[in-house]
């Protein structure tokens, strides 16, 4: 098109939409933090992940989830095995190390991602203008078959599910799934858990005996639809493994290219939920005689909520712990040191996951 043809009549107000330019240029359109699996502040590999281990073990923000007490176990790790030519450098891997060949009815294993309600207000859930959600991701596994990706609305006890198929063994495949909007059940606008998303990796009949709830519905009374269609159990053999990366969730009915964020921005977003000291820090006497030693730690970003503090000390004196704690900072204290000295050890961590 000649430049003189680009006139107001040719491009009327609101005529150029994302669909027409085939590019969604909305910054931070990916609702998922660390969807490229690039950050793993806690560890890069953890063994024996199974019964009772529902938490974030390796890659930031992505949790292992189980219920029902499976006897199976995984090694969960951050890996460099990624789809070729897509720009990714890391993936998350689950490697079955102890098999549970037949999951009991109430057992579920999954990868879980949790959302704060205040991060999701623009999807307008619970209103007549509610948005569809489109999930895209890359997956590679030896276990071909039908899997389920689903959501659980923690504020309103509602859920929805979609099936996807892994067709080729040990081959990276991109999957795109669109979830219908939900005009019921508004999400509370605060910093607590509103919505959780799951990549189901195995489930018992309590959750699979129905059919996938492709329209949002009440969970209670319809739990059999939550994982309807899932015919894979990733725990059924110790040769099983599952890789995932490039997870993107965005408002609307189409998937845009993965939104890569600068490393520093991604780190700061992850540190809203987890922060770890990278070096030892001295505690300083705040009174003569050094009966009170203190060190104030300012978090790099305001955390989601006041974090749980897991602190290691050089010496704990006659008493130690944390005080004056909030989402911005915490003061570490050790009492009764006298002529001795102490420090807060690197690796001390502050966690505010959902």
């Amino acid at each position, binding site marked *: 098109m000649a430049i003189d043809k680009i006139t107001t009549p040719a491009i009327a107000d609101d005529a150029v939409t994302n669909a027409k330019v085939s590019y969604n240029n909305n910054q931070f359109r990916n609702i998922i933090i660390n969807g490229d699996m690039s950050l793993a502040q806690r560890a890069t590999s953890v063994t024996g992940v199974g019964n009772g281990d529902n938490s974030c073990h390796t890659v930031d923000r992505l949790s292992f989830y189980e219920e029902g007490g499976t006897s199976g176990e995984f090694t969960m790790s951050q890996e460099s095995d990624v789809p070729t030519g897509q720009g990714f450098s890391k993936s998350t891997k689950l490697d079955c190390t102890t098999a549970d060949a037949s999951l009991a009815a109430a057992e579920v294993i999954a990868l879980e991602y949790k959302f704060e309600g205040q991060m999701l207000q623009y999807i307008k859930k619970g209103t007549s203008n509610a948005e569809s959600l489109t999930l895209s991701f890359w997956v590679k596994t030896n276990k071909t078959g039908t899997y389920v990706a689903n959501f659980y609305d923690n504020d309103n006890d509602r859920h929805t599910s979609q099936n996807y198929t892994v067709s080729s063994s040990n081959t990276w495949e991109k999957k795109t799934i669109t979830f219908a909007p939900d005009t019921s059940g508004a999400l509370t606008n605060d910093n607590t858990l509103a919505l959780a998303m799951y990549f189901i990796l195995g489930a018992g009949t309590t959750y699979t005996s129905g059919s996938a709830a492709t329209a949002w519905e009440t969970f209670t009374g319809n739990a059999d639809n939550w994982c309807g269609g899932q015919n894979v159990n990733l725990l059924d053999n110790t040769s099983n493994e599952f890789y995932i990366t490039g997870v993107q969730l965005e408002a609307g009915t189409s998937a845009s290219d993965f939104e890569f964020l600068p490393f520093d921005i991604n780190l700061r977003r992850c540190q809203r939920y987890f922060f770890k000291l990278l070096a030892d820090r001295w505690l300083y006497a705040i009174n003569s005689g050094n009966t009170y030693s203190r060190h104030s730690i300012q978090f790099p970003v305001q955390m989601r909520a006041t974090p749980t503090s897991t602190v290691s000390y050089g010496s704990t004196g006659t008493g130690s712990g944390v005080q004056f704690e909030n989402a911005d900072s915490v003061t570490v204290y050790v009492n009764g040191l006298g002529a001795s000295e102490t420090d807060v050890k690197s690796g001390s961590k502050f966690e*505010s*996951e959902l």
Partner: protein
Amino acid sequence: MINTVTKNYLNGQFINYTMVKNEVSSSVPLDEANSDYQAIQTWIADGGTVIDNPPE
């Protein structure tokens, strides 16, 4: 799995919990939005007993 929960006092004031979970000891703030605080309340509701030794 939570092993024990103890109330912590400083200068006579209840300031937080010490939670031992999977043999790891952590300080849990009195913040209802903290997921470990929520887990402690569920643990108490399910019959768990908090160790409480307030200063005299």
